[in-house]
């Protein structure tokens, strides 16, 4: 009998091809959407974490109170000690001190006069002994010219900044800034590489150098503006981050220069952003289940009517109602499975393209504030792409059939046949 029904299914495009198309298309869209959102939203979030907020971050109470001021008089001191303390207390995270500072970069001509000058945003990172910071800032991938700093006195500039200053590789430039006590700092650096982050707020005017090197230049031996912490595995764990924050803050004094732990969620309104991502994800899923359910429901109802003749006849020929109902469900199941499988595959193709190539958003996104949105937004294929389609793709038609098929069950056979006479 299954063979017999399969023949009918394959021959009737209204029953096989159309629902299959609807399911595949819906599932494909869902998968693509999900991968896209994952890439775009979590991508932005991950940039935000890497470049700015960490999963958790340590800074002084004063700096936090002044909206993460990077003025050096509010910097952390005894950074090595703090870092060791953190690493022992919270071994599930890696911690990296960073020095963020502002200043001017001055390029002299042959006579020592200013040839060009620009304000800069400086980053002192642990470049020499830690691969992780290089990875966090995507420095290797972002390197457009030259190489990464390998010794003292060497810096990277963003490509835009170097071009603006007309500074070429190997040339020297002078950093003019302040030390923690307000004294003037003048220090010469050699440009060894140029990077492009593909993120507007960073590309404009960033200077990157080694932490120790910049600490020395800025006259703050053991100081850093912050220590960022990242979970070693699986990215941000919000509850654990909160736990660490509470634990740390309970055990440290409340003075202006004492360290305070904050989490990613505390910064840049990321808490709402995170909640939004999660609620968007569930709404999108609900929307797709609803939409597919609705379409398939209607398809199912129409199919039900179109197939009254078959149902009535099969009843008259002595098939049990239960069997007929089961065969309807089986059909929905097969269609749902095949459709979901097809749809997932179809959806993954453009998702893969968007993951590898990305979409240029520079024209779409103007005036963004602090958000580290990449110029090229990529989708990200995640494991749940593989099964998310089954919710709408399988359950919707199955449920639709389950309910519309009840009609066959409830009606008495003579009634169904009587209706046939009038078709």
């Amino acid at each position, binding site marked *: 009998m299954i063979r017999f029904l399969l023949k009918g299914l394959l021959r009737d495009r209204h029953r096989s091809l159309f629902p299959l198309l609807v399911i595949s298309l819906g599932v494909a869209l869902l998968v693509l959407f999900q991968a896209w959102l994952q890439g775009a939203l979590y991508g932005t979030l991950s940039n935000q974490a890497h470049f700015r907020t960490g999963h958790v971050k340590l800074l002084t109470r004063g700096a936090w109170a002044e909206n993460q001021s990077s003025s050096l008089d509010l910097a952390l001191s005894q950074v090595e000690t703090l870092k060791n303390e953190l690493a022992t207390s919270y071994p599930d995270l890696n911690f990296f001190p960073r020095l963020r500072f502002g200043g001017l970069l001055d390029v002299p001509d042959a006579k020592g006069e200013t040839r060009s000058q620009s304000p800069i945003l400086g980053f002192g990172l642990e470049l020499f002994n830690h691969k992780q910071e290089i990875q966090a800032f995507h420095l290797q991938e972002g390197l457009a010219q030259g190489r990464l700093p390998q010794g003292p006195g060497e810096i990277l500039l963003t490509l835009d900044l170097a071009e603006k200053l007309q500074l070429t590789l190997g040339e020297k430039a002078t950093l003019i800034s302040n030390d923690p006590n307000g004294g003037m700092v003048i220090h010469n650096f050699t440009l060894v590489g140029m990077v492009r982050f593909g993120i507007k707020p960073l590309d404009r005017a960033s200077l990157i150098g080694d932490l120790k090197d910049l600490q020395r230049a800025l006259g703050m031996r053991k100081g850093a503006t912050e220590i960022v912490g990242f979970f070693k595995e699986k990215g941000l764990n919000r509850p654990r981050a909160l736990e660490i924050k509470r634990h740390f803050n309970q055990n440290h004094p409340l003075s202006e220069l004492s360290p305070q732990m904050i989490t990613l969620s505390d910064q840049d309104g990321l808490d709402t952003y995170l909640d939004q991502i999660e609620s968007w994800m569930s709404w999108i899923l609900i929307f797709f289940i609803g939409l597919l359910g609705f379409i398939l429901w209607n398809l199912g109802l129409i199919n039900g009517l179109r197939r009254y003749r078959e149902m009535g006849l099969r009843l008259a020929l002595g098939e*049990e*109602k239960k069997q007929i109902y089961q065969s309807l469900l089986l059909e929905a199941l097969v269609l749902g499975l095949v459709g979901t499988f097809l749809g997932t595959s179809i959806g993954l193709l453009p998702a893969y393209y968007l993951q590898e190539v990305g979409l240029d958003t520079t024209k779409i996104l103007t005036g963004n504030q602090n958000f580290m949105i990449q110029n090229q937004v990529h989708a990200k294929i995640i494991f749940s792409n593989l099964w998310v389609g089954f919710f709408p793709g399988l359950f919707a038609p199955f449920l639709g059939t389950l309910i519309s098929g009840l009609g066959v069950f409830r009606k008495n056979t003579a009634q169904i046949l009587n209706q046939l006479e009038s078709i």
Partner: protein
Amino acid sequence: MRQEPLLQAKEVDKIYPVGGHDFYALKNLSFTLNRGEFAGLIGPSGSGKTTLLNLLGALDTPNRGTIELLGEKLSHLSANKQALFRRLHISFIFQTYNLLPLYSVFENVELPLILLKLEPKERKKRVHEALEWLSLMDKAQAKPSQLSGGQAQRVAIARAMVKNPEIILADEPTANLDSEASHGILKTLRQINEEKGATFLFSTHDDKVIGYLKRKITLTDGQIVHDLSLPEPLKKR
């Protein structure tokens, strides 16, 4: 001929609720159909012919009284047992043929045998036999949409006889056919009745059908008003 009761209705009522009150489509109706009969329910539209056929075919249950097929009270059987009875013993022929449009003539005729779980080889043999009876061998692979009304009804008849049922119930089988096709079909049905011993019960108000019947049961307002069996010699013509 041996008088062996095949189908018996005893004091049957069938009630439909219409506009708040009970409408008796059949009222205290009793009759017996013997094996090998070629009988017809005749009567005006609305007299209850289809209603009675549905009860006899276990497609519906009476509000009162009993229907017995092969000594079993149908209304006492579970829905699944009733389905089994239909599957094994009862065939229907409908006014509108009710062929499945997606399936070939062969497959349409094969369906009852698939439901009986016969082996493919046995099915093929029986389907061919039935198609030959109805002179449909050359149409075996055709789809219902490619058939004339007469041909479509022949397929329905082949489907009805292929499982050698105890009884074939035919509700106005010629209503949609022209005179020539009707006569052709009726002759074949009589032939099947006489040569294969199949029992037939028709519902009709078509004079052409009535002319072929060996027994005429007249219904009016849900009750039998005449029951006339033709004497033996007249049966062969």
